[in-house]
């Protein structure tokens, strides 16, 4: 078996280069088909916003195209200079390549530890390889086991628990306050990117009404149009705050837009109605005193980031257990692979010995015909069977113990290992 992975990831390759390296689905299908045809090997390609990786393999112990050849292949397809790709490139062989795939699939090598999206992307890489016809028995077995390992890591450890994106943490807070959203009004203040992302998340909950306000009425109209909301003049901010149940604030103001005094007037108009304010601006748009823990719940970027950091710290605690599961699944794959590869060979070896044993026995018993009792015949047959088993034990055990790296041995070394002969 030969296995290799070549890749570029967020660890050493900057975003601009990763963006140029990214392969969409049609490009991947073509690339995989070409790798299979040109290099006569199995291939799979993983392409996400954080990494591009090419896996190549062969069931037989024949060399694979080396890292430089594959780098040149990728560079040619993407119109990038090889010299640009070389510094950030990483390469793994054999068991290291296996371990790398298992860790990537389980989210242990991700920008955010334990993220689960990458498992689906690894599955997509496998499916595209199937469609391109570049997945053979080795990569098929490898990706299946990687998927199982990722599933085990997710369910048996806490490494995927909790929220890590600011937007998802914000939504989680909103869901702790409100259960229904179709009757809720959201007010978006400002036009910041984080606000747009959070609004998209909120939109999936089925919001009733969206109001957008901005110092620039033009920007307010643009944002309102993009999210199906209504723009509200900036001077009507208090009215909008009175009407809103959820507020997303992402202005670029250098001082709070809504002070405690201003919000007191708003609160008097709101009565006891509950409001959730997500202040995603830096510096903050809302005076922290607005958060009263009774009817107004204010969460700013610091609060959301704190939860995120705590979640990531909690995930780190599960890393050891996750790595142990990866090691188990890797071992399981190796045992499974060796059994599949060696099984037919062992069966042929056994059949061959069996045939020879029967032939010699038949000849011997024929010559001794009439001079042996049934019990004597049974004893002789048993002795030949025992001899056969003892002859075969050495080679079969040696095959089972062989490392997947294989390697070339001299005939002398092979005989010594097969029959457990001392040096």
């Amino acid at each position: 078996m030969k296995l290799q992975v070549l890749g570029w990831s967020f660890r050493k390759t900057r975003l601009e280069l990763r963006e140029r390296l990214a392969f969409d689905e049609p490009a991947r299908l073509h690339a995989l088909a070409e790798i299979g045809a040109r290099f006569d090997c199995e291939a799979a390609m993983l392409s996400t916003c954080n990494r591009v990786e090419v896996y190549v393999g062969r069931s037989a112990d024949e060399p694979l195209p080396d890292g430089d050849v594959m780098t040149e292949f990728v560079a040619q397809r993407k119109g990038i200079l090889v010299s640009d790709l070389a510094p950030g490139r990483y390469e793994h062989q054999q068991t290291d390549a296996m371990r790398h795939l298992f860790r990537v699939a389980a989210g242990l090598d991700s920008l955010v530890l334990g993220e689960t999206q990458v498992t689906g992307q690894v599955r997509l890489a496998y499916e595209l390889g199937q469609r391109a016809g570049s997945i053979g028995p080795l990569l098929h077995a490898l990706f299946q086991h990687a998927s199982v390992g990722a599933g085990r890591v997710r369910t048996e450890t806490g490494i995927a628990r909790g929220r890590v994106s600011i937007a998802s943490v914000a939504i989680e807070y909103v869901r702790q306050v409100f259960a229904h959203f179709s009757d809720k009004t959201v007010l978006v203040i400002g036009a910041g990117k984080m606000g747009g992302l959070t609004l998209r998340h909120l939109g999936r909950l089925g919001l009733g009404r969206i109001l957008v306000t901005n110092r620039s009425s033009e920007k307010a109209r643009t944002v309102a149009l993009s999210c199906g909301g209504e723009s509200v003049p900036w001077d009507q901010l208090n009215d909008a705050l009175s009407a809103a149940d959820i507020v997303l604030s992402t202005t670029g103001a250098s001082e709070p837009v809504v002070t405690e005094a201003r919000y007191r007037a708003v609160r008097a108009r709101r009565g006891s109605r509950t409001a959730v304010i997500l202040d995603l601006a830096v510096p903050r748009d809302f005076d922290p005193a607005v958060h009263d823990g009774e009817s107004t719940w204010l969460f700013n970027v610091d609060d959301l980031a704190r939860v995120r950091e705590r979640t990531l710290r909690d995930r780190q605690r599960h890393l050891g257990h996750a790595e142990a599961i990866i090691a188990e699944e890797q071992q399981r794959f190796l045992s499974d692979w060796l059994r599949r590869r060696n099984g037919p060979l062992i069966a042929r070896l056994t059949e061959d010995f069996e045939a020879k044993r029967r032939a010699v026995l038949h000849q011997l018993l024929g010559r001794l015909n009439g001079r042996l009792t049934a019990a004597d015949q049974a004893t002789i047959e048993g002795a030949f069977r025992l001899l056969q088993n003892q002859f075969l034990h050495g080679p079969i055990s040696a095959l089972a113990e062989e490392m997947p790296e294989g390697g070339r041995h001299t005939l002398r070394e092979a005989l010594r290992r097969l029959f457990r002969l001392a040096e």
Partner: protein
Amino acid sequence: MSLGGATVLCFAGSYAIALALEAARLLGPRRPVMRALGHAFGAAGILAQMVYLAVHPPALASVRGSLLVLSLILAIFYLYGSIHHGRLAWGLFVLPLVLGLVALAELDPDRGADRGPWRAAAGALSGVHFWGAVHGTLLLLAAVGVCVGFIASLMYLFQAYRLKAKALPEEGLGLLSLERLEEMNRRALGWAFPLLTVGVGIGAILLGQHSDPLGGWTDPRVLGACVLWAVFAIVLYLRYGRRRIGARRVALLTIVAFGLLVFTLASTHTLAPGVSR
């Protein structure tokens, strides 16, 4: 062992184990088998309690009777909620209440005064006994509403406290949203109040019309029920009247109402002078 051998310890023990399993889910790794075991013990407790109440039917009007029946209804409420909201810490809030009511029932000094089988009792339902049973049943159902409101209020206050501190729910201590909890409280009080009103009304009529062995309007249970009704009316007015108070204050008042309920249920009816038991 025949089912008729079910004792208080059987069902209380089952509920206690279900509570322990619920707490263990909070502290250790989540395992579906623990949740299933908790449900199994909860169901076993409910079955044992139903058998116990069928074999040793207590008088609804007695402290023990009302508390045991109330705890059974809440145990069923626990099982339903725990299955329906699998990821929430439902049992951690409901089961202690169930166990508390069972314990209170066992502390009743008149716990030996159980009546005979239900069949014999049903034949005696007529006249004042019938209306007395209606009065008791309505108050019991209202008590269920107050208990549900109490549980919702406790959860609300706990959730509000966590959100005020800006903590996210930890695994195993998931709770419903504030809005859902406020709805639950509102609905519970909403249907408990009319039941309580009619129940107290029937009780007042019975008290006025019959030479009851009760000690009149100063009877602790009578007083407790009236004060409970008044608190209810105030809560509903404050929540839905012109000057509405927030859900947090409604939750606090609901807890006060629950305290009054416990006092009412735990009080025995005193007898008029000269009347012996």
